[in-house]
């Protein structure tokens, strides 16, 4: 049987969304550092503003450099398009704001990034959108939490910080059975490790800041539109399937079909909320995406070395990573993540909060900061930083103990990473 004529993943990481500049011959993606774009005529301007034609008019809505990153990540994920944002959180908000309105309800995994938990648990209710949090390992829990007013199911492909592995197809089946889309945050995995749309997800959200960018130099996010969900099936999603006065009565599903979500997210979401990505940041992040396949392979390889070291260390009380046989999702991860389940893990230090603090203070090579997915190894104590706004009850439900340390394994020589961690662990016990 003949094969589809398309470039393979590693090639698309370097080339998708770009051709050499026809005017200058520039091989690298140029940074189009401009706020706005000259119109050919009044008719051209009118057409752009009215969604009659496509093109760039103002960099809050779209920009040629940003568009390359959007198309590249959309291609890597197997989606129909992407909308880049100023941060991963802006991407999450853009997805929510494009689909939901007051009175709507979300069913979400309880094991998600603290900022996303805050958004759903604390901020969105002020706008009339409520969320029920469930165990991501239990697809039936998602089903039981769905109400008549539910409009979205949300989870992370690899949870934070416990690296809970989402059975994407099982949860997608639950969502689709109820006529709902499944949105996933796949920041920890990147499309190199899993492409959620192939497993049934409808929307993929990334903090591009992390492994996709990979170098810790720029903040950015993206909403990737899978293009397979039927938004017009039963009237549940009026922002997409009913006329919108913002563009003289346009109905996005009617005019744009599979691109309805991305078109509305850009035409309304970036126009009104304005959480756009800067062209300079898009350029920085593109440099990272170009080497995503080789970097992620090394991230995963180093992670396995670190897990081996931690596994034999007396100061370590437990390790949480799907590659470790003790992880509840070990078998699921082997099936869904043949290239590895990412480079973020957590572990407990014997001695609780004090020992954890000593460990953090003692690391030398690893950096103590609030980020993951850098080329450099990073550590953090979530209970006092990223998840500090969560109540003790919510922390416990999310499996975050006081002794928990989260590690984002970088690209240094794995022996140096292991030496640094081992030495800090010894210091933690003094």
């Amino acid at each position: 049987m003949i094969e589809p004529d398309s470039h393979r993943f590693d090639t698309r990481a370097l080339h998708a969304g770009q051709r050499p500049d026809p005017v200058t011959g520039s091989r690298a993606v140029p940074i189009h550092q401009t706020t706005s774009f000259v119109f050919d005529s009044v008719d051209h301007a009118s057409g752009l503003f009215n969604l009659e034609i496509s093109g760039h008019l103002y960099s809050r809505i779209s920009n040629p450099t940003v568009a390359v990153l959007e198309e590249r990540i959309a291609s890597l994920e197997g989606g129909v398009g992407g909308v880049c944002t100023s941060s991963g959180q802006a991407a999450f908000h853009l997805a929510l704001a494009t689909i939901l309105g007051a009175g709507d309800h979300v069913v979400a995994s309880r094991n998600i990034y603290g900022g996303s938990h805050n958004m759903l648990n604390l901020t969105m209710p002020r706008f009339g959108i409520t969320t029920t949090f469930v165990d991501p390992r239990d697809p039936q829990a998602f089903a039981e939490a769905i109400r008549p007013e539910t409009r979205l199911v949300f989870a992370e492909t690899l949870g934070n910080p416990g690296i809970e592995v989402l059975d994407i197809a099982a949860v997608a089946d639950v969502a689709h059975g109820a006529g709902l889309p499944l949105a996933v945050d796949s920041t920890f995995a990147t499309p190199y490790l899993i492409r959620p749309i192939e497993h049934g997800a409808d929307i993929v959200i990334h903090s591009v800041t992390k492994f996709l960018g990979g170098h810790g130099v720029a903040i950015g996010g993206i909403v990737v539109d899978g293009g397979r969900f039927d938004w017009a099936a039963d009237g549940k999603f009026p922002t997409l399937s009913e006329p919108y006065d913002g563009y003289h009565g346009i109905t996005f599903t009617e005019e744009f079909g599979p691109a309805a979500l991305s078109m509305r997210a850009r035409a309304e979401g970036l126009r009104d909320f304005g959480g756009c990505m800067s062209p300079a940041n898009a350029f920085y992040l593109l440099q990272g995406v170009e080497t995503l396949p080789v970097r992620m392979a090394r991230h995963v390889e180093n992670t396995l070395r670190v897990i081996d070291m931690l596994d034999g260390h007396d100061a370590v009380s437990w390790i949480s990573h799907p590659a470790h046989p003790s992880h509840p999702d070990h078998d699921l991860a082997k099936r869904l993540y043949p290239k590895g389940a990412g480079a973020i893990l957590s572990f407990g230090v014997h001695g609780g909060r004090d020992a954890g603090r000593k460990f953090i203070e003692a690391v030398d090579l690893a950096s103590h900061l609030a980020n993951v997915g850098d080329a450099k190894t990073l550590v953090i104590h979530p209970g006092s930083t990223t998840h500090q706004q969560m109540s003790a009850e919510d922390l416990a439900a999310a499996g975050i103990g006081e002794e928990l340390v989260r590690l984002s394994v970088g690209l240094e020589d794995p022996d140096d990473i292991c030496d640094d961690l081992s030495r800090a662990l010894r210091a933690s016990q003094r």
Partner: protein
Amino acid sequence: MKFQVDDLTVNAATGAVSIERDEVADAPLVVLLHGAGMDRTVWSQQTRWLAHHDTRALAVDLPGHGGSEGPAITSIGELAAWTARLAEALGGPVHLVGHSMGAFIALEAAAATPDRIASVVLMGVGAAMPVHPDLQTAADADDPLAAALMAGWMHGPDQRFGLNPTPGMSMTGTSRAVIEACPPGVLGPDLAACAAYGGAVDAATVLTCPVTIILGTLDRMTPRKAAQPLLDAMPSATIVELPDSGHAPMMEEPGAVRRVLGDHLGRLAA
């Protein structure tokens, strides 16, 4: 909008502009016909623009496709006859704009029912449209491979790299999603209808209405040379060749296609 043909509902995108407004009552009726396994949204770069430029534009979903009721019609001749009935239902001669299978339908409709068809614009068209046997097999089985094969072939080689005229969108990804959304049991017969249709040159020979043909230099599904017998049969047709287009110029060079449509309709109005 939705309306009835043969007592079945037909869905059409009108660029969110009603074709029933008094101020456009005399404007040309332009009906855009999609290709095999696709739907109205392949014309999203033209429909709304036409609707705002002195036409009554309808990008229709063929029966059994998109939002139109089925069953799908399985021969070009019958689809052409349906198009003539559609023109009648809309109340006037229509200008047909057809892509690929839609171009065959437009050609046959204009030849068979010249009183209903005011003019035709064809793109992604040849004298014949043979279908690769692996594609036909996959389509007959409703295998998603068919959508992947078509999305790979229907666009010019540059689209393997991308740089979509619509910011942030993947052209091949979007085309694949459109075809994947085709209801089961429709794409296979569509492709079979294209492969079986042998009347293109005969239809072209008897055409009396104005014709514009848009050729994509990089078209791999209906290569440039495959269109030559059609061009020979229509010496008065206006030929426009787009050097950067593959089989789907309305997506790959949407601005050029809009200009061609504007010129075509402008010549008729002059």
